[in-house]
């Protein structure tokens, strides 16, 4: 089998990339999806808040996904569902497995859109027993929203990631008692609007700088003990809080799913845990592109779609016209910035570029400094936080004169 573009993953990133590639003139596109329906994680995100940026509409996850599914179907884009990619090679051979067998597709360009997974509780070194009733927040969300089952009745949520916050509200609405959300950092990694709408509106306490000391229960979980931590995240004796509960949810971070990427030899960035890419979202392996949560974890799907369209158009160009010569400069993180994406900017592209970044800690009245070696410019932001991705735009001229791009955030009060 041969295709111009193979897209691995039919979530919001894969769908938007497919549509954009098609519209850029590359019609021989295949989307491979391991689940029985496309739409990715949006299928289980039945809350609203999607599409505010892109469509100026307040959509649910399935509604947002549906817009892209419709566009893909309208164009007759080929989508292989219930099909698992077992291997990808640097020369763009994609091996798949489904109920009709194992087969290999040769592609001119590949777009990685596999999304991310939740960090598991196992990684956290938690003392106590290993009973039933411990879930990652996304798994609990699937039980409630897709399977119609309530995981339990008295719930403690560890970690204040967005899925955990959303689930605090969701479980409350379905009649469970959410006792608290605990977060080890001094701030939540979730969106501010989720803290307000999912916790504050329901009177669910958020304990910042708290971690889990112990899980109890034989058979099913019967309780957890939280403890306050100091600046070095060490437990402070005597600050224990005990909760009787039958369910514990973990919302402790998302990790891009790059096992295939890694095995294909595509270079990864330890900061994002996704591929190193240029402005086209092309990885350091020619003809392999990446977008969405497999590239870096986004907080809003609207930005995923935008990124996927960039990758889709660029992959189409690559598949139809082949690669071109690049003149890369690096994008680096300065003070208080944890990563900048893309990591490489191509001066030959001769086009404006948006650079995305995340900050290390929350600031009010922040000053973003963009240093290009040739000049510095500053941008003011009212507030920045690690849970919200920021961006700055550079014009074609600014990039043309740049030796490198370094983004730093300073000033303001915490």
């Amino acid at each position: 089998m041969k295709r111009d573009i193979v897209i691995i993953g039919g979530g919001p990133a894969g769908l938007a990339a497919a549509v954009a590639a098609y519209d850029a003139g590359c019609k021989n596109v295949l989307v491979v999806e391991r689940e029985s329906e496309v739409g990715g994680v949006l299928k289980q995100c039945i809350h609203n808040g999607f599409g505010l940026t892109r469509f100026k509409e307040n959509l649910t996850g399935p509604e947002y996904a549906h817009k892209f599914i419709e566009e893909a179907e309208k164009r007759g884009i080929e989508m292989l569902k219930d099909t698992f990619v077992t291997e990808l090679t640097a020369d763009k051979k994609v091996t798949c497995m489904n109920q009709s067998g194992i087969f290999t597709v040769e592609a001119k360009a590949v777009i990685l859109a596999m999304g991310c997974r939740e960090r598991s509780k196992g990684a956290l070194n938690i003392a106590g027993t290993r009973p039933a009733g411990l879930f990652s927040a996304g798994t609990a969300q699937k039980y409630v929203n897709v399977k119609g089952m309530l995981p339990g009745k008295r719930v403690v949520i560890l970690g204040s990631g967005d899925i955990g916050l959303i689930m605090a509200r969701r479980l409350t609405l379905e009649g469970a008692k959410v006792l608290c959300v605990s977060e080890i950092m001094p701030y939540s990694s979730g969106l501010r609007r989720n803290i307000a709408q999912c916790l504050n509106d329901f009177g669910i306490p958020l304990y910042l700088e708290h971690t889990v000391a112990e899980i109890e229960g034989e058979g099913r979980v019967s309780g957890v003990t939280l403890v306050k931590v100091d600046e070095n995240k060490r437990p402070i004796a005597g600050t224990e809080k005990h909760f009787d509960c039958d369910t514990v949810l973990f919302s402790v971070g998302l990790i891009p799913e790059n096992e295939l990427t890694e095995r294909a030899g595509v270079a990864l960035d330890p900061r994002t845990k996704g591929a190193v890419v240029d402005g086209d979202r092309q990885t350091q392996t020619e003809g392999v592109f990446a977008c969405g949560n497999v590239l870096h974890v986004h907080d809003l799907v609207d930005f995923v779609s935008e990124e996927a369209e960039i990758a889709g158009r660029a992959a189409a160009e690559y598949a139809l016209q082949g690669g071109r010569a690049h003149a890369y400069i690096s994008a680096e993180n300065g003070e208080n910035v944890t990563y900048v994406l893309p990591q490489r900017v191509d001066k030959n592209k001769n086009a404006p570029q948006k650079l995305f970044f995340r900050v290390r800690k929350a600031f009010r009245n922040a000053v973003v400094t963009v240093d290009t070696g040739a000049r510095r410019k500053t941008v003011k932001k009212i507030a920045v936080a690690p849970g919200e991705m920021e961006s700055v735009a550079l014009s074609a001229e600014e990039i043309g004169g740049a030796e490198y791009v370094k983004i730093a955030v300073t000033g303001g009060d915490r």
Partner: protein
Amino acid sequence: MKYDVAIIGGGVIGALTARELARYALSVVVLEGAADVAAGASKANSGIVHAGFDAAEGSLKARYNVAGSRMMATVCEELGVGYENNGSLVLAFDEAQIGILETLLARGRANGVRDLRIIGREELFLREKHASGRAVAALYAPTGGIVCPFELTIAAMGNAMDNGVLLLTDFEVVRAENGKTVTLHAADGRAVSAGYVVNCAGAGAEKIARLFGDDSFTVGARKGEYILLDSAAKGFVKSTIFSVPTAAGKGVLVTPTADGNILIGPTSVEEPDFSTAIRRGAFGEIIEKARAICDGIPFGETITSFAGVRAYCDRHDFIVEESRKAENLFNTAGIESPGLTSAPAIGKAVAEKIAARFGAEKKKDFNPKRRAFSWFRKLGAAEKNAVIAEDPAYGKIVCRCESVTLGEIVNAIRQNPPARTLDGVKLRTRAGMGRCQSGFCQPATLETIAKEYGLSLGEVTKNGKNSAIVSGGAI
């Protein structure tokens, strides 16, 4: 129905005893208190096939260890169980410890361990580049190995069942009537009669003996806690790396597992109530002790942590004997480390004694082979396609991290001994054992179990009684 032999306990000792007894013309039942076999120490241990230089000369531990280690490769081959002869290294950090290595060397040779030798720094780092740079010498045991302990237990029980043994789970023996025959009563009212009973109850062995009026030994418990790293850390060490043993035991080790992970532990703490809860301070202790023997351990790849409990007896050696006090009872007790290694030899010895007692003949149709759990994943693409064409469920991946198909999960539920719980499926197929720790595959696995047994989702458990996975009811 009355059985010739009832085995109490479906750990590795009970399972391999059952398999060895299945060679004879005897009717055999295994009574396991938990929802599945491998519920006790046989699920959570280091998985090391010890070479045999630790145990005191002349002890039963030494005898069964060396004999078991020699049998292990064949048993695993027959049962399709993951085993690797990866070799072990005991590191010494100063002159005094080199002295201990020499003692171990002499003891090992006296115990009959082959090819043991002490190696210097050069060979050590050639073998293991992450061995601590401060090590000055090591005892090298080429016969040391690794085995998947729960896979061995499950496969041995499955093979015993394929050869006619009956397994009753959720059968916790709480009472024994010992007359001409023995009647064993379960907590839920069921009863089974047998002519002879083998006590393989691990942590519960003292209690079982007492049900028969045998108080000739006591069983204590020492907990061991572990950290497990993802298969992404595979290759960090190839051999099993020990520090020199102290009075407290063999200490923390760093080893590959037969499944391709890296295992670090165990600690050693008295645990009077046999709890497998991990102590708050355990992680720091494991990490510190492991760093003393290996450099640059990738703890960032941690995927889970767990604990197992060693059931030791007051004689400080294995008990493998006819009860000193009761009729119709054979005790295996105090089977702490190296009990896993010894299990094939203990099972064989116990079965031979019982067969002699009954004057039982060997069956002609005993089949020692069992298809490996991993049979499908080891096939090439063309062979896989043939299997998928037969049964499309083998083309559907359920567990992404470990690439486990629906076909393999259904097979684990239907094959002997049938998986009935989420943990049962996990231990048989590895579904849920990878980096996401079942985040993605749990709902699908639950549905498959529910469908196969005609249960609702809310009735499927993690590991039996009171461990429902989703307990809040339907929305």
